[in-house]
């Protein structure tokens, strides 16, 4: 090989060891900068190989060159030299994970189509060996037609071997399209290249066939990425090309991918073999069960059921402790501070409101603890895989699964995560259904209603009716999300799905420090973020519920009948005052609207405040009930709810039907300002957040109505 300095690019899927190889090659001779104008790291260094100083570029990890994601686009543009001021690399080192060869080779076959010399690095040889996979690099090299070297990047002598191989390389350009597109696909590619890409776009020559394939599979061009003229001409040519493929009996969306994988399969089937089954397949054997068509969903359901049961039972002692703390704290403030308005405000407003919510901290901590453990062990990826089955059946894209699962914590990160969905309509549908996933802000409301109104009957030894109801509410959220997506998919068809590859990492022990840190962080956010809002709203609410001051009329024998409708004998002055306060009057105004759902005006006030954030509901109820409570009394919110009696009917305010209706309302209604704001930002239009608010809240109202009417007439 020539002794010229070369530009060598490292490409590969994420986590294949590119950076490790880059560091080993360059040592300290590297600099990290951002690509101009964007925040993806660009790592460039130099390395002396065979006595020549070469330039080494570490490209961002990519699964394919279809450049829909920023990282992939940068890798792609660097390889074809379209990136500003960058020359086309003289050699592309494709790094693959030997223990996951077939999938990793997909990118390799794409890079081989770019008309630059390619060398394949089978990294992680040690891992593959450990799994009992043995690979013959020479056979792979023969069938792919590129030099191949098997190494373990952590091993210094292997790096030397790699350098040796690089310096021996004759920089031959691999045969393009070696994977063998069939005739109709080739014809379609030529049509696109000759009639559209060559004459009308600025795509560099080396990238034309990749671009043609991309246009055939996606059916549309992304005008953000390159310049072109005559858009109409482009669209009609794409259409013609796709028709050619269809005429040849292929599916324009899948033909390329399938042919590449067929080719890869042929290359690897005789070049690699799995020798020992034992160690190799612990992960695989677990996966055979865990991701099984039938067993998979069953296991997923059991995991969730166990998780929610545990959250419900394990958190109880801690919750009792916190409860005691706030009750005692409240009493202490009440007795220490001189009597007055501030005293009442602090005790009935701030402490009651905050205490009502902080009590759920243990459950929140357990919830996130489980979520992070499931994530850390690698099970979460399997759960997503299992869900993917359902999702694609209803027509949702596989990429929707991970955003939806993060909706269990909070809809906002979930909505941001939908950015990985390339199809705009798929993305919008995912955003629109994501708030149905039971986020952690709903937990306090669910937990309160369940603890107060669902009996704790034991079922199957370890489960209780309470735990099962809790679990049921989470499943309800998933089902509603899927149903809503199904319906929306019918209203706005999004076309066929492109194949989606999901990575299933090996199972491992979670990193406990990470689990605990993240859980603690979530707890902190819950206390500070929710806490601030709750304190603020409790204070405002206390004022609204304490003014104007009204005295309860003194009851005498004669005017008994006259006052009968506005108060009753059993009512204490505090609740009379509350009913006539601003909050009470307002509650009475909205009561007719929510009465059919089984809610009284106090719940109504709670509902109003919960539109700021769902967990505020619980704080609000606690504040309202504390104001109403006669001085000196103190019971938990749960007891207050159970004992609350409607002064007009003499019936308990809450029945099981009310509690269920309320939980359904919280499961479905769009009660989160922050989500609305994020949806507005992500879609850049008020149309979507408005539609979301209206349809979700209407659905909530209707469902609660039906649930309550059925429930109370049983």
């Amino acid at each position, binding site marked *: 090989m020539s002794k010229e300095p070369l530009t060598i690019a490292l490409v590969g899927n994420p986590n294949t060891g590119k950076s490790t190889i880059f560091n080993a090659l360059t040592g300290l001779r590297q600099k990290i900068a951002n690509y101009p104008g964007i925040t993806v790291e660009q790592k460039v260094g130099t390395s002396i190989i065979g006595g020549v100083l070469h330039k080494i570029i570490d490209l961002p990890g990519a699964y394919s060159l279809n450049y829909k994601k920023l990282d992939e686009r940068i890798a792609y543009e660097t390889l074809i030299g379209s990136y500003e001021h960058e020359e086309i690399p003289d050699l592309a080192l494709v790094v693959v994970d030997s223990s996951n060869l077939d999938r990793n080779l997909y990118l390799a076959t794409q890079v081989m189509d770019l008309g630059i010399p390619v060398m394949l690095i089978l990294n992680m040889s040690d891992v593959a060996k450990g799994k009992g996979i043995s690979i013959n690099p020479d056979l792979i090299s023969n069938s792919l037609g590129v030099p191949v070297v098997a190494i373990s990047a952590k091993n210094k002598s292997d790096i030397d071997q790699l350098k040796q191989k690089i310096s021996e390389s004759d920089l031959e350009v691999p045969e393009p399209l070696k994977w063998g597109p069939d005739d109709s696909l080739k014809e379609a590619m030529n049509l696109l290249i000759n009639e559209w890409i060559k004459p009308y776009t600025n795509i560099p020559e080396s990238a034309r066939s990749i671009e043609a394939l991309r246009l055939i599979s996606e059916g549309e061009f992304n005008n953000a990425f390159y310049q072109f003229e005559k858009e109409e001409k482009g669209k009609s040519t794409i259409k013609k090309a796709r028709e050619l493929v269809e005429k040849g009996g292929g599916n324009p969306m899948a033909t390329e991918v399938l042919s590449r994988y067929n080719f890869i399969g042929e290359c690897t089937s005789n070049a690699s073999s799995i020798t020992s089954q034992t160690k190799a397949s612990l992960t695989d054997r677990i996966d055979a069960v865990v991701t099984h068509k039938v067993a998979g969903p069953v296991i997923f359901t059991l995991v969730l059921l166990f998780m929610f049961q545990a959250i419900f039972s394990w958190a109880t002692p801690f919750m009792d402790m916190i409860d005691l703390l706030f009750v005692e704290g409240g009493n202490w403030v009440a007795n220490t501070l001189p009597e007055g308005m*501030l005293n009442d405000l602090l005790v009935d407003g701030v402490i009651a409101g905050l205490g009502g919510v902080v009590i759920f901290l243990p459950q929140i901590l357990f919830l996130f603890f489980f979520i992070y453990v499931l994530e850390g062990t690698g099970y979460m990826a399997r759960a997503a895989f299992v869900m993917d089955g359902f999702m694609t059946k209803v027509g949702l894209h596989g990429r929707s699964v991970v955003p939806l699962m993060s909706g269990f914590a909070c809809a906002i990160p979930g909505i941001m995560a939908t950015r990985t969905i390339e199809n705009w309509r798929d993305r919008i549908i995912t955003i629109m259904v994501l708030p149905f996933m039971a986020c952690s802000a709903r937990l306090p409301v669910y937990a309160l209603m369940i603890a107060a109104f669902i009996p704790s009957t034991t079922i199957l030894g370890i489960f209780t009716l309470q735990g099962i109801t809790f679990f049921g509410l989470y499943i309800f959220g998933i089902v509603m999300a899927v149903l809503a997506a199904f319906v929306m998919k019918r209203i706005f068809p999004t076309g066929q799905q492109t194949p989606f590859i999901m990575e299933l990492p090996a199972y491992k022990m979670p990193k406990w420090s990470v689990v605990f840190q993240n859980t603690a962080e979530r707890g902190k956010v819950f206390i500070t973020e929710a806490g*601030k809002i709750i304190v603020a709203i409790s204070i405002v609410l206390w004022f609204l519920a304490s003014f104007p001051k009204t005295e309860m009329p003194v009851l005498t024998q004669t005017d008994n009948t006259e006052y009968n409708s506005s108060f009753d004998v059993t009512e204490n002055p505090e609740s009379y005052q509350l009913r006539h306060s601003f909050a009470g009057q307002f509650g009475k105004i909205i009561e007719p609207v929510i009465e059919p759902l089984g809610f009284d005006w106090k719940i109504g006030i709670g509902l109003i405040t919960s539109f700021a954030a769902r967990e505020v509901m619980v704080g609000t109820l606690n504040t309202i009930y504390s104001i109403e409570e006669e001085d000196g009394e103190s019971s938990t919110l749960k007891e207050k709810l159970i004992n609350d009696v409607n002064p007009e009917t003499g019936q308990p305010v809450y029945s099981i039907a009310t509690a269920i209706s309320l939980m359904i309302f919280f499961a479905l209604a769009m009660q989160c300002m922050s989500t609305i704001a994020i949806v507005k930002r992500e879609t850049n239009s008020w149309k979507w957040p408005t539609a979301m608010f209206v349809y979700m809240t209407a659905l909530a109202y209707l469902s609660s109505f039906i649930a309550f009417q059925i429930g109370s007439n049983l």
Partner: protein
Amino acid sequence: MEFDFQTGVAFGMLAIVLVYLTNRFVLTPIRRSKTSPDHNCGPDCKCEH
């Protein structure tokens, strides 16, 4: 209702809290919804980049 020290503090707290809530639920969402979104923002998007 006489206006004593405690009443003063209580109303002071109310004032602070009202400012906070307006900022949190009215001003911030408006500001946030105005900042430009990232890439892949769809047909309704008027992306500059």
